[in-house]
């Protein structure tokens, strides 16, 4: 470890170090980081599809999704660009609910979004109460900048895995790297292991 001459840092008194993964700092803003323009789609035109290694693709409209039992979670989120945001509150439908009636042999999932974005995850990381399709943030409808009408939320992984503008999930027997994963970012992205880039 190389000490940087004259650097003292600034610990945020309000941040519990046990909640901030290594290399992260706490922000109160909610930065927007996307690789392209913000897609703007009306909820009426939005659907969510589970396809791939399933008998039949299953499709929900936004209103069908809203009619499903909802869960609200308050959680910390960690962006690979180093910011973390504590106690963010989201409401949406658990992936457990959406996958409940789906029979699949798949081990992997590839989330896909408006604008062409994709990101890959082991299917096990989407189940067991670990992931939801979120349509509200802090009690308000999710804005387009933050991924509305709905985004994937998988807060235990770096936030690029929580695909904005999500339109569905492709269940796969093989692991297909997504957008940032093909550009050298880590395939899994555990913030507590600092899995930022390939090889970390």
């Amino acid at each position, binding site marked *: 470890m190389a000490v*940087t001459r004259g650097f003292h840092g600034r610990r945020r008194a309000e941040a519990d170090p046990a909640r901030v993964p290594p290399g992260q700092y706490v922000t109160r*803003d909610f930065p927007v980081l996307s690789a392209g323009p913000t897609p703007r789609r009306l909820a009426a035109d939005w659907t969510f599809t589970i396809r791939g290694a399933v008998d039949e693709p299953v499709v929900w409209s936004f209103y069908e999704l809203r009619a499903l039992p909802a869960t609200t979670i308050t959680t910390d989120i960690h962006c690979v660009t180093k910011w973390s945001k504590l106690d963010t509150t989201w409401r949406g439908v658990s992936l457990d609910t959406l996958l409940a009636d789906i029979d699949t042999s798949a081990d992997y999932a590839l989330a896909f979004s408006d604008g062409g974005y994709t990101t890959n995850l082991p299917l096990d990381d989407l189940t067991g109460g670990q992931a939801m399709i979120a349509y509200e943030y802090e009690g308000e409808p999710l804005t387009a900048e933050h991924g509305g009408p709905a985004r994937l939320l998988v807060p235990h992984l770096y936030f690029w895995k929580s695909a904005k503008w999500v339109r569905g999930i492709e269940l796969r027997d093989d692991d297909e790297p997504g957008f940032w994963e093909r550009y050298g970012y880590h395939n899994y992205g555990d913030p507590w292991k600092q899995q930022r880039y390939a090889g970390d």
Partner: protein
Amino acid sequence: MEATALRRRLSWQLATVREITAETDRTHSIGLDLPDWPGHLSGQHVDVRLTAEDGYQAQRSYSIASAPTDERLVLTVERLDDGEVSPYLVDELQVGDQIELRGPVGGYFVRRPTDTAPALLVAGGSGIVPFRAMLREHGAAMGAAPIRLLYSARSFDEIIYRDELLRIAARDGIDVSITLTRSQPPGWHGYTGRVDAALLRQVSWPPDEQPAAYLCGPTGFVEAASNALVGLGHDPGRIRTERFGGT
């Protein structure tokens, strides 16, 4: 679109500060020597890691300001007054100091001199930094396609790389347009408004020429400019954004 995966593990290495240039009151360019730099693409960034004496560490990402053809790696850092790392890098760092970094990172917000589509670069404030790498490389490698830069700064004194941009603007194949949004010196002949649809229509190629657009700057700036380009009929798939979020 072809992604070039980084197969190499990115290890931290100790870079030595060889040169510091004040670009503006708030912005310094830091020239670094590294034991093992694998080269980079214009538009990529690095992660910088600072360590306090008690072991506390802070990391941030900074765009690379130098072209792959330059002999030294340069980072250009703007001091954010409420920041934790940038005030150190701008106010405290001296020639001879060492900082840890790893990279290069990213492969999407990049341009190669062999790219054939005309490029529209739209910068807000310190968002000019990755474009400086692209413009320098374009000049050194005789880039094939024309480039238009639209750079929004608050005032004349806040134009980063001012003299260099004026020199670059005299070259064939590169157009530089600057808009000063808060104050202008007497006799200013450049633009004065914020980057909006009208200014983008004036400066950019029409959508049917299919330019590759790159937008970099603060979140709100990039959001507004990318929305305006989409509104003018540009293909969202040809608009790449790098939003400088957070502190």
